[in-house]
């Protein structure tokens, strides 16, 4: 480790006083990433907890890794399956293969790299202007953004969406900690509305590029389960496959099992709010049951069918799990009060399922529900905190 420290020591003069001064935020970010700095507490408490924002963010990244790896395998799996190159009888033996991994990684690793370069570029630029160190929030956003995209998303669209999200979603509000909307979802929403043909429909979720001699199997449809529901009222995917993740969808969203595993890790470490996650679960279940009850009263048959699916289908299809565990729990854009988190979480789940069922144009209701609740969260907090203020005033008058 000494030699790394030596490199930093040798280059420090160049970025602190020399010509490369504008690069100091980048230098500082890299150095503090290699070494937690030797700063000591000088005011207030003389001892401090070992946790810092980097540790918090890396904990979320650890939680994302299983779903990401699965997404990489699934990228290849869905591709080769569409081309009819898989022997279905072999089951999992066909999934965790080197071919699948290489195919997925070839698509997904560049997306991750582009996201980090674009997002951190903006962050470092603003850190230089505002003269503050680079905040770590983007470490997580930069991984979340590609995980919410379809595998065939062109890299330049990923880059533009990311830059939009960091600029308009975060920096204009004052940077990390000040943003109203979840930056990762802002990027996804931007891509969704700016490039709809790359973000929705039944052509984007599975890569069907064929090489010489290959063809897509007859009757192949690249639609996601929710896409099928919205158009036909039924799906060809089983709930068990959806739970495990063997379905098309955004890169990181398919394996409910591994997402929940990440959620368990977030709850165990105390980084993700279990109140939001449980609230969203209750909200989604409540909406699902409400639909089951209301289904017979609907006019169109496809709506009747969509609304009468078992409530737990909503928890395994689409992005409910990913959104609930990794998106809704962003501490900055969620409700800040503990009581508010229950309300916020419940409404995220409740509205997300409602949008996905009622509006066929937006099978991905979770994204819109969370963005909407991001905007509403300060109001929820306002009422929660106001109750406390009123109580204090009342006591004071008594």
């Amino acid at each position, binding site marked *: 480790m000494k030699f790394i420290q030596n490199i930093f020591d040798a280059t420090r003069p160049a970025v602190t006083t020399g010509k490369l001064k504008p690069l100091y935020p980048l230098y500082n970010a890299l150095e503090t*990433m290699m070494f937690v700095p030797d700063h000591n507490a*000088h*005011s207030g408490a003389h001892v*401090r907890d070992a*946790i810092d924002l980097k540790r918090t963010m*890396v904990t979320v990244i650890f939680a994302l890794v299983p779903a990401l790896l699965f997404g990489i395998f699934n990228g290849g799996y869905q591709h080769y399956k569409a081309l009819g190159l898989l022997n279905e009888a072999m089951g999992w033996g066909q999934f965790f293969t080197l071919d699948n991994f290489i195919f997925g990684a070839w698509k997904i690793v560049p997306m991750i790299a582009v996201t980090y370069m674009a997002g951190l570029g903006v962050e470092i630029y603003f850190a230089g202007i505002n003269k503050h160190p680079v905040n770590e929030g983007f470490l997580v956003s930069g991984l979340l953004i590609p995980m919410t995209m379809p595998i065939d998303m062109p890299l330049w669209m990923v880059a533009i969406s990311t830059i939009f999200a960091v600029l308009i979603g975060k920096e204009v509000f004052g940077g990390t900690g000040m943003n109203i909307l979840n930056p990762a979802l802002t990027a996804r929403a931007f891509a969704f509305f700016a490039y709809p043909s790359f973000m929705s429909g039944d052509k984007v979720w599975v890569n069907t590029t064929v090489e010489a001699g290959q063809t897509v199997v007859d009757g192949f449809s690249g639609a996601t389960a929710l896409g099928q529901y919205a158009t036909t009222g039924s799906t060809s995917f089983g709930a068990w496959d959806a739970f495990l993740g063997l379905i098309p969808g955004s890169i990181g969203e398919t394996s409910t099992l591994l997402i929940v595993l990440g959620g368990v890790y977030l709850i165990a470490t105390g980084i993700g*709010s279990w109140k939001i996650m449980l609230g969203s679960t209750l909200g989604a279940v409540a909406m699902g049951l409400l639909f089951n009850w209301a289904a017979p009263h609907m006019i169109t048959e496809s709506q009747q069918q969509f609304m009468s699916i078992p409530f737990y289908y909503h928890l395994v299809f689409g992005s409910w799990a990913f959104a609930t565990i990794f998106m809704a729990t962003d*501490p900055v854009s969620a409700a800040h009060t503990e009581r508010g988190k229950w309300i916020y979480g419940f409404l995220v789940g409740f509205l997300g399922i409602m949008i996905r069922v009622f509006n066929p144009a937006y099978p991905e209701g979770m994204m819109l529900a969370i963005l909407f609740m991001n905007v509403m969260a300060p109001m929820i907090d306002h009422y929660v905190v106001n109750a406390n203020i009123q*109580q204090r005033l009342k006591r004071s008058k008594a």
Partner: protein
Amino acid sequence: MSKTHTIRKGLNLPMVGAPSTQVEDFPLGTSFAVNPDEFVGVAPKLSVKEGDTVKAGQAIFFDKKDARIQITSPVSGTVRAIVRGAKRRLDQIQIEADATTSYHDFGKGLPKDAEAAKATLLASGAWTLLEMRPFARVANPDDAPKAIFVNGMSSAPFATEASIAIAGREEAFTAGLKVLNLLAPKTVLSLHAEESAPVLTQATGVEIHRFSGKHPAGNTSVHIAALSPLNKGEVIWAISAQDVAIIGDLFLKGHYCLDRILSVAGSGINAPHYFRLRGGMNLATFFAANGKKGAYRYISGSVLSGQSIGAEGYLQLNSQQLTVIPEGQGTDFMGWVLPGFGKFSNSRTFMSWLSPGKKYDLTTKLHGEERAFVVTGQYDQVFPFDIYPNQLLKAVWAKDLERMEALGIYELAPEDFALCEVICTSKQPLQHMVREALDLLHTEMN
């Protein structure tokens, strides 16, 4: 019979270096000093000059805004030096002590009424032992407090135990309580649920309340919130049990003597135990005799809210304990990614949470850099008040006085945010922020 209040939120820092209950005398030496900074809210104006001789209990400086509030010398001797900082700011008054202390005589006997009590307390400097809420500063003699809270159970790490501190001074403690009873309609004595010293548990003329739980269960703000929440316009005075005994002695003997029994603890002390020390004394020989060699942080007070004084510094006049812990040294390679078995954290993001009973040799390391507020719900774990800490701190940050007031800042002292500051992911200087906000509010209101 007193009721036990259980405080459910909080954190006891798992530190090595707890003191044994043995009490030892240590020679006071001849070098003393007082730093006016210690007295929150006092704008110091000197009443002595270099070369003057003073007796113990005679004023060395007073508050410009209220000349009745005086800070007096802890020893008799000669004013050796007056140290000023930038803009002639008064930093330190150094006193060369006589071999034996001669005390200014304030007359023996308990006071007849509140006026007499106040007069002696103010003249002797003992008044500064009383801290007021709101604002957490030296009490204002013109206020009519609704109660006086005597703290017999500090819960800060390695805090001095009241029963050890006042052992042998039972008479003085009882007399002190009688004096306080003249000043307010009600005196509350808060004790740990397991306290068994009769002088505390059988104290008369006071309401006794017992508290259990982790720190800050022993903070006076917690006791006030549980028993008599502070509303706007109300005032409560707070004092420690040991300082009540000092007030008792002032009236019984006529002397103002700042000898205290203090817990001296932390991993930088060879054999942590209790010592009889005097406020204002120079600690260089003391640390040389009892401290370990190396880079240490010498703290007059607790690790949570004390003042760093250096190896050759002076004990603060009204410190209730002394702590010495190692200074943090060196960087930490990839510390934010590695499992971290040996790192203390209140979160469960380091593997160390798998060994819950473990004690740590905590250093002064900040473990990171200052960042914006990001994480929510973290402070709530160690903040046992019906107050929203994040929202209040944001109001403090924005200097929004009305909102701070609405959110309950009057009920708090900076020390109540100490644990929040310890566990803060964003390494924000919370106690400093709250201190400034309280001072700002006080300026605006007076």
